[in-house]
């Protein structure tokens, strides 16, 4: 095709996701979508500026990568530090860490579903964009907005009650935890559980009802098959905090199972692309083109054999029916799986809070530098996260590699954008609802691009259509 006949539509910035990104859609001479690219325009440089610092500082520095998933970074980081020291956390510390992780997962999933995504389901994709946000929900459905906000509050409250901070937590230290949970705080958090379960179930009912009413769209919405990566327990059960890696293929066949996260480099490789600061990771044995895999709630539920708690297990079984024994590829199902995870989170939080050891003061083992290399992983809300440190004999970092969840979803996000663009964008006459569908494809993955949050979703969207010579042929500004 002659490239001079192509036009490019830019959607920038993408609203209601965490971070800054731009989508460009290239049209051919007939106005059909030819290609779509998802750009990430920010550069952070953590891997570089953490070099030459002490490895024990990493659990403090790396939570600053993200305001939404600081606990996952802290956990992956302390695990890498514990591998360097050759120690394990105490039983109570493990309980508190699980609780902290649940806290973050809940508040992140609540933010993603109730604050960022529910406006699309409740108000409609084609509704006024100025009102299609959490404030619009607060006006139209005040009860739902309030319950969503309180669910997020519960998540953050757990973190504050343990470490004294709601975001950018501290206190997760190599060998355990720096702060214990008091009996008073344990009781306080337990009282929240029934309300949290009810709110998550409300969300599940909302998304199920949306699925029913929009069956055609949900089942055709960016359904391109990919591989999946997630953490599982010894019996293949769903796991967020500590487990082994499992890869499955498009058909659900297990490619790798019970892989220790320290072996991640044997299975994952990365490649940089010229048009984005986000790297392109892929499943190494399949190569760059065929090795596209996804992580996150959809991937975790696709790879898992079961959930660990009864209510979540019940929903999990319903979810598995959608795929008929095979992985569910529909990107839209990220929302549903996010809520099933949230349900399991609340149930596990209740179990932990009822554990007699959770308020014990035996919270830290102490160690010192013993090994040069450490690798830690955890399941961030958006997917599997790896921290890999190499140190010199004094403990100073000589190399840092951070493999972030959103990065791993990057290739498939790009693929999904192209699919949806082909389905909904026709020519340069852009309708508001169409653009939002492209954007909402990205939102399904709940990407955390730079950790600055735009929860309100009032940002203007600017769309520009360029010809092949870079000349603007059309410019649309959404207030």
């Amino acid at each position, binding site marked *: 095709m002659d490239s001079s006949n192509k036009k490019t539509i830019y959607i920038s910035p993408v609203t209601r996701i965490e971070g800054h990104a731009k989508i460009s859609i290239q049209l051919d001479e007939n106005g059909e979508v030819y290609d779509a690219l998802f750009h990430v325009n920010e550069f952070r440089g953590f891997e570089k500026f953490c070099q*030459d610092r002490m490895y024990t500082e990493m*659990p*403090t520095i790396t939570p600053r990568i993200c305001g939404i998933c600081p606990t996952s970074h802290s956990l992956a980081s302390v695990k890498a530090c514990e591998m360097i020291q050759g120690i394990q956390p105490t039983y109570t510390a493990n309980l508190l860490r699980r609780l902290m992780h649940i806290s973050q997962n809940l508040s992140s999933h609540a933010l993603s579903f109730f604050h960022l995504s529910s406006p699309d389901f409740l108000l409609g994709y084609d509704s006024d964009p100025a009102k299609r946000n959490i404030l619009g929900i607060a006006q139209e459905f005040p009860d739902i907005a309030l319950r969503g906000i309180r669910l997020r509050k519960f998540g953050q409250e757990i973190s504050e009650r343990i470490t004294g901070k709601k975001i950018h937590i501290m206190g997760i230290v190599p060998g355990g935890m720096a702060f214990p949970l008091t009996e008073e705080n344990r009781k306080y958090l337990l009282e929240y559980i029934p309300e949290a379960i009810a709110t998550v179930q409300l969300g599940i009912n909302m998304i199920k009802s949306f699925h029913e009413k929009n069956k055609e769209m949900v089942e055709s919405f960016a359904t391109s098959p990919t591989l999946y990566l997630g953490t599982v327990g010894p019996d293949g059960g769903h796991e967020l905090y500590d487990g082994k890696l499992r890869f499955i293929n498009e058909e659900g066949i297990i490619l790798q199972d019970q892989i220790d996260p320290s072996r991640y480099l044997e299975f994952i490789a990365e490649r940089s692309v010229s048009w984005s600061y986000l790297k392109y990771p892929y499943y190494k044995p399949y190569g760059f083109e065929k090795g596209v895999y996804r992580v996150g709630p959809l991937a975790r539920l696709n790879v898992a054999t079961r959930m660990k708690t009864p209510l979540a297990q019940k929903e999990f079984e319903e979810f598995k029916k959608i795929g008929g024994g095979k992985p569910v590829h529909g990107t839209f199902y990220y929302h549903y799986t996010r809520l099933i995870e949230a349900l399991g989170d609340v149930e596990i939080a209740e179990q932990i809070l009822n554990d007699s050891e959770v308020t014990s003061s035996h919270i830290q083992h102490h160690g010192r530098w013993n090994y040069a290399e450490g690798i830690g992983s955890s399941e961030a809300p958006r997917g599997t996260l790896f921290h890999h440190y190499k140190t010199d004999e004094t403990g100073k970092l000589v190399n840092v590699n951070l493999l972030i969840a959103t990065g791993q979803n990057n290739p498939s996000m790009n693929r999904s954008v192209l699919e949806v663009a082909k389905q909904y964008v026709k020519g340069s006459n852009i309708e508001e609802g169409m653009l939002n569908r492209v954007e909402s494809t990205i939102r399904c993955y709940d990407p955390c691009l730079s950790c600055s949050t735009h929860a309100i979703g009032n940002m203007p969207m600017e769309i520009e259509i360029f010809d092949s010579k870079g000349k603007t042929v059309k410019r649309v500004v959404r207030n």
Partner: protein
Amino acid sequence: MQNITIYIDDKKLEVESGKTILEVCRNNNIEILTMCHLEGVLDVGACRLCLVEIEGVNKLLSACTTKVAANMVIRTSTERIKRYQRITTELLFAERNHMCSVCVANGKCELQNLGYKVEMDSIRYPRLFPQCEVDTSHSWYVLDHNRCIMCTRCVRVCSEVEGAFNWSVKNRGYQVRIISDFNTPWGESTTCTSCGKCLHACPTGALWPKAIVQGQLDKKPEIIEELMAKRKMGL
């Protein structure tokens, strides 16, 4: 010692001669900001935060190194002094790489507290962002030049209290740095006794034990004074 009359902030005081303005102020509950001052070791007037106005003297003088004199009229909290304190604090932050949020001393740092005290809501001077070394060569401790404010409390504690003379200072101006022995890695020092007093003396996160992370730092600068008091008593 002879008693003399002085005036601080329009308040008449009978004080012993030979005392510094800072000592007198502290004894009379008059607040003076300090950073390089540490009870138990000699003052050097390095940080310039304790500046006071003295009637008849044009320039501001440091309270920690200026002794009281009969009929001295001193002012400790004029607008001019506050302005200078704010400027000095901002310059301390601008000179090296002070990132409180990820610092091991976050929440327990004298420099951070000073920033709050002078209501530093921004830094008006361009940050230098120097390339600073992190010396991790010691088995137990870390020296991070990024967070050093050159108060030299570590230098004085090491020489005056421990008597090891490990710490010293090299270069001048913005290139000034704390050095171990004759500018060798701390871990190779032949004079350091690994006593850890310099860690307690350090007001920031420049000196800290490897075994701890943010939230666990527990510096006790007051132990230096207690040690010196015991030494004077021959204990």
